[in-house]
């Protein structure tokens, strides 16, 4: 028994080491000087703060991170709100077309945005119609709407609108909130109604406080999803000062020779920090609200 335990420790240490190697390497290289970073040396240097400062200011990682934080927080809040409302509507009301609405929402779980990158770009990037009249005449004609390419779009390229508004709905969120609300005893809603609470007050006072785990789990998933986005900002944002952090990382690497690897590594590490922090803070909620519910 003692021997196998010793073996388990050894295997675990080796496994952790191999999983850590690339990041350990990045950490060490982020601390070295411009010249040491190009040598095989794996001795940590004292230049970490200088590299961080260089990548943050000179390579403008600070701008990219601020943009991404802003967009990721906005989308996380937006998705959570719309999903809470939809969950409330789906669980505590009965109305015609409810199943259709739910299926319509659920189906989008299977539809990755990336597949739609071409038409989505077309829709967002093209110039808006001249006025409401032009828009109405387009909308009234099903042939134009469904059978011909778009003449106009939203005109949102190079704006944060393009990075936020299209993502304000979450099928995952609706699905999880619906599941969670259905597991909450009906008596609570009945009691709230007897006390004269309307649906919105019921949501605010009772459902939201009781949904901490689900909200936390969703926040992790959605924040990380937006933070990691790459393809969409790559095509729709062409202005560097509005770029998101993952594409920004590619801009910092730049092209060809003379890459400043020390500060690129510092930049890569800084890019990991926010999702790492979110994950650490909400780990319990995440495991309880999402991971465990998946295995049932």
């Amino acid at each position, binding site marked *: 028994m003692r021997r196998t335990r010793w073996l388990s420790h050894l295997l675990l240490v080796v496994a952790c080491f191999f999983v850590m190697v690339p990041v350990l390497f990045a950490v060490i290289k982020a601390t070295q000087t411009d010249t040491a970073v190009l040598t095989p040396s794996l001795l940590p240097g004292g230049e970490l703060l200088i590299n961080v400062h260089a990548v943050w200011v000179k390579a403008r990682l600070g701008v990219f991170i601020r943009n991404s934080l802003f967009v990721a927080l906005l989308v996380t809040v937006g998705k959570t709100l719309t999903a809470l409302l939809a969950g409330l509507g789906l669980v505590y009301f009965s109305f015609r077309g409810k199943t259709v609405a739910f299926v319509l*929402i659920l189906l989008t779980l299977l539809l990755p945005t990336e597949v739609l990158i071409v038409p989505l770009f077309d829709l967002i990037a093209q110039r808006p119609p001249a006025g409401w009249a032009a828009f109405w005449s387009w909308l009234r004609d099903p042939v134009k709407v469904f059978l011909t390419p778009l003449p106009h779009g939203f005109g949102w390229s190079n704006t944060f609108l393009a990075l936020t508004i299209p993502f304000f709905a979450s099928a995952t969120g609706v699905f999880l909130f619906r599941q969670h609300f259905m597991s909450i005893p009906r008596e609570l809603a009945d009691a709230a109604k007897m006390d004269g609470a309307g649906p919105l007050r019921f949501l605010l006072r009772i459902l939201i406080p009781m949904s901490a785990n689900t909200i936390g789990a969703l926040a992790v998933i959605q924040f990380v999803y937006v933070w990691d986005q790459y393809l969409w900002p790559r095509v729709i944002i062409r202005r560097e000062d509005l770029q998101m952090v993952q594409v920004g990382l590619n801009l910092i690497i730049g092209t060809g020779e003379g890459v400043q690897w020390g500060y690129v590594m510092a930049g890569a590490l800084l890019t990991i920090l926010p999702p790492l922090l979110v994950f650490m803070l909400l780990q319990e909620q995440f495991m309880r609200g999402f991971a465990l519910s998946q295995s049932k």
Partner: protein
Amino acid sequence: MKASPVFKSRSLPWLLLVPTLAILLVFLYFPVIQSFVLSLYRSNLFLGTQRYIGVENFRNIFSGTLAPGFRQVLLQTLLFSGVVVASGLAGSLALALLANQPVRGARVYRLLLIWPFALSPAVAGTIFLFMFNPEVGLVNQLLNALLGIKPRWLDTPALAFSIVCMAAVWKNLGYNIVFYLAALQNVPAELGEAAQIDGATGAQRFLAVTFPLLSPMTFFLFFTNLAYAFFDTFGLIDIVTAGGPVGAPPFDHAGVTSTLIYKIYQDGFGGAANLGFAAAESVVLLALVAGVTALQFRFGGRRVYYGGA
């Protein structure tokens, strides 16, 4: 179990659903229709020109001069996904089993194994790009010191393909381990102990008890990892190889690390700027996604142990 509704209103539930439905209809369902429409046009991103050409884009995909490139990329995508899903799931299951043992400091080990959850494909790509840089990368500096060789990792087709696979697997380890650990915590210890009393070896116990009990999780992870390999690896590929290098025949029609989504990006937004052709490729990809989804539903209810009834 359906309970009776609590609140009564005809319009309020729709008001609650409007934000979600409006966003999904405008930004997901409508683009689906538009990808079919656009696929019938010759449409240039930069010139803004559009001309109806029927099914010519599809004819070009399946036969004609552009077909070999598409076939190659399709094959590569399947190969890449197969490697990433299979080795990703096997590796993370092994690591999760290891971390699930009741040893001292298990929490610390688990934390050290699941942190890659925070990695993004672009960050994973950036670190691997440096590690495998032929001149200043760690790998070649070691190889040069030990064996006196300096492989051109990212310019050699087979090597570049394996590096992209490795980086992609590494990036997703954390995610997979989180889910496998959660599932392992639901495996009752008594089952394993009972098997042990019956004289089952460790491997037998795993094959007969643990693995079947994990099958719902493996099923779930199979499809999430497949989606990951198809779509989320875009940033990683863009940074490490930008889809290249071009291989030897028959892999000489496109870069060997281009996946379908990468090709769509290149065809639509790259030099040719042929949005119509890219839209036609998207339609094929949509059909592929629909097929995989159908499989998921077809086998979702069976072959998989869901616990209880």
